């Protein structure tokens, strides 16, 4: 019907292997980055440092899990950074009043609820999630400031910071939670009805609707999960630091989106996976860690990441063009 006629043979032009490689280019990036840094410094490829990388990447990583689900739906959540800060502030700030575990629970619930609120606003107003969550970003940060009175909150009982100090070999608890959640949600994506619906909704929303999938409920759940992930990341961050900065997580939403897109998940929805996101998160973490080990000034890190993202975008574009642009 439209003027742009898609060529009928989308497959076939490429061999299976090149397509698989192009679709998983993130792991190529990662291996390349690891190889380069391993050659450049002996301190890089050590068990300890690998553990460090995982821990450092885990916070963005946990946020990226929720973001991946939302992006697979064809939506976006800009409020995760602020939501993380709020969870951290509540987890620490509520402790004197209600105790450690209830505080953690309330922080988690609040973040989840704000995620659900984002989702409800998106599906019932018909506004684009970009606007809704941009509002959320500003407003939730406001909540954080109101709650903390713009001061950093300190834990009174430092045993709180030890909760996260559990190690399994070089793996910190934070890293384990990140990898565990990633594996769990990858399983959800690949093996449950909700997960498969996530792809269907992002891929061809009309087909999904015609097949009777409840799209509104579905999206709200994914926004809720995204909020919950922000809560978990925020709580873990507050344990690690022992403080809750009102400015914690600022522009982390942008880093999170970068990690997800770098991994290869399609921003328009319908295509991607948590393995890709883990690849994106690890690549960012390796770049950051490696460049720091090499004592490069931190501007190099920022420039490299920006360039890598544009490169990844170019690669994606190439894949799309070869597959017949959709």
């Amino acid at each position: 019907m439209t003027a742009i006629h898609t060529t009928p043979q989308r497959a076939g032009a490429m061999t299976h292997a090149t397509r698989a490689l192009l679709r998983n280019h993130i792991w190529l990036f990662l291996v390349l980055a690891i190889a380069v840094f391993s050659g450049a410094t002996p301190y890089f490829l050590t068990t300890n440092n690998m553990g460090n990388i995982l821990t450092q990447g885990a916070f963005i990583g946990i946020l990226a899990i929720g973001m991946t689900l939302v992006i697979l739906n064809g939506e976006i959540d800009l409020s995760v950074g602020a939501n993380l800060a709020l969870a951290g502030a509540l987890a620490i700030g509520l402790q004197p009043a209600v105790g450690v575990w209830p505080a953690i629970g309330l922080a988690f619930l609040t973040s989840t609820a704000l995620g659900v609120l984002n989702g409800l606003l998106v599906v019932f107003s018909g506004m684009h999630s970009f606007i809704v969550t941009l509002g959320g970003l500003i407003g939730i940060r406001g909540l954080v400031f109101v709650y903390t009175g713009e001061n950093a909150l300190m834990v009174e009982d430092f045993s709180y910071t030890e909760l996260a100090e559990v190690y399994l070999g070089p793996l910190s608890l934070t890293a384990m939670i990140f990898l565990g959640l990633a594996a769990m949600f990858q399983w959800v994506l690949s093996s449950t009805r909700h997960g498969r619906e996530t792809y269907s909704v992002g891929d061809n929303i009309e087909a999904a609707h015609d097949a009777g999938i409840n799209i509104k409920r579905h999206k709200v759940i994914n926004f809720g999960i995204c909020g919950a992930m922000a809560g978990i990341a925020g709580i873990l961050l507050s344990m690690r630091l022992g403080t809750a900065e009102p400015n914690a997580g600022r522009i982390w939403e942008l880093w999170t989106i970068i990690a997800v897109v770098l991994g290869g998940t399609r921003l328009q929805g319908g295509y991607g996976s948590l393995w890709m996101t883990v690849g994106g998160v690890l690549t960012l973490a390796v770049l950051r860690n490696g460049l720091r080990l090499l004592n490069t000034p931190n501007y190099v890190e920022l420039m490299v990441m920006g360039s890598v993202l544009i490169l990844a975008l170019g690669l994606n574009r190439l894949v799309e063009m070869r597959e017949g642009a959709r």
Partner: protein
Amino acid sequence: MNQTVLSVSGITKTFPGVRALDDVSFDIRAGEVHALVGENGAGKSTLMKVLAGLYKPDSGEIVHRGEAVRLTSPLEARNRGILLIHQELSLSPELSAAENIYLGAWPTNRLGVLDKRKLRADAQAALDALGCDFGATARVGTLSIARQQMVEIARAQAFNANLVIFDEPTASLTEGEKVQLFQTIERLRAAGVGIVYISHKMDEIFEITDRITVLRDGAVQGTVETRDTGIAEITRMMIGRDLDSYFHRARADFGAETLRVEGLTKAGLFRDVSFSVREGEVLGLYGLVGAGRSEVVETIFGIRKPDAGRLFWRGEETAFPKPRKAIEIGMALVPESRKEQGLILGMGGRQNITLPHLRLFSRLRVMQERQERAVFDRYRERLSIKTTGPEQPVSLLSGGNQQKFVLAKWLCAEPKLVILDEPTRGIDVGSKSAIHELIAGLAEQGLAVIVISSEMPEVLGVSHRVLTMSEGRVAGEFSGDSMTEQNLIEAVSRQAPAAVESEVA
């Protein structure tokens, strides 16, 4: 086997300004292939969407297997065993064939965990039953169009459908794939499924259908047994005799050649297309949707780049222009899709009209709104467009009035060649004849005109000469006495390669 699967009676459906279905009644029996034919805009797709639960009819009754039903959603239709196979497939490319077949009805345990084994086995069984040669785990995006279509048909098998509606199913299939599809349809018929088959291609209809129902202007013209009828009768029913009087053909008074193309080729879209058009001449371009007609004129206009070919503009060979250059030298293209290519819906009439000629309506790059309003007023009157004013967004107008704005937009700068791609699609009869008159008037002013249409009477009624296209090639050229319905239909519904040599029957 003569049980009725579904019967509709007195179905009426109106959209703002258009009565799409008018008191439609017909029935489908188990184990029959029932063709639904009619010209574009005759109401086929509306009827199909009513049957599939996508549209709610204003009035009328649907009886499915002896039970009066109200189909309010595609899901409900599917649950009752009614399945629509769209021209644009409703699949998720990233999911597997199995997941697509059972979309929205995946087998899960109580926690929502997929039973992948059962899903795969059931889907494979459905695919095997249709004789498909690919696995249920294949990602749909990697399958060919024909196989994707099979995935959709497998839904019919999987959900035990009793009524399957095919909408132009062979539009993008090769000959071999078509044979396979017909075998599949045969299997479904043998299993007692009722099948509605919508197509423009007469040879297919006479090959596989049992009965034919003809729609025109939203009303049923009659239902006939296929074996008792012929192409001529069906065509007559589709077109209606009285329509001849609607058309107004320009005097045949031709001047110099305005445009000539030779050997125009674009891989995958069209091949070796050559034709010319003279001042004062209306050239019709007839062919089915997807025959490459729009692509050819878009290439001439510079929207696409050709792989090969030559272009002569008013006697001189010219490089293929970009759209802006094409507009400057005096070409105008009224595109196929009003809403997607012709108009900016959020803008008012004034801004839409002057859009291709911003330079003409500006001085030192500053828009001259007074001139814009003047041309708006002139064309509002000349084409009798109903609008509240120059700033009213065109999205609020009826299809006919929108189309008039598209015409105004392309006529206001006095072009030498006007190409109209489906100029009357989806608009009411009154606006149609106004547009036909306008076309004749343009030719009589000495403009060269190319009209693309899938509506046979329109092409025959307004053109001096008709070129038929089929599968990207020119399939025949007709003028004078050879310009008959019969010849045109045969030219486009034959398979293309053979069609080129023997053009007149």
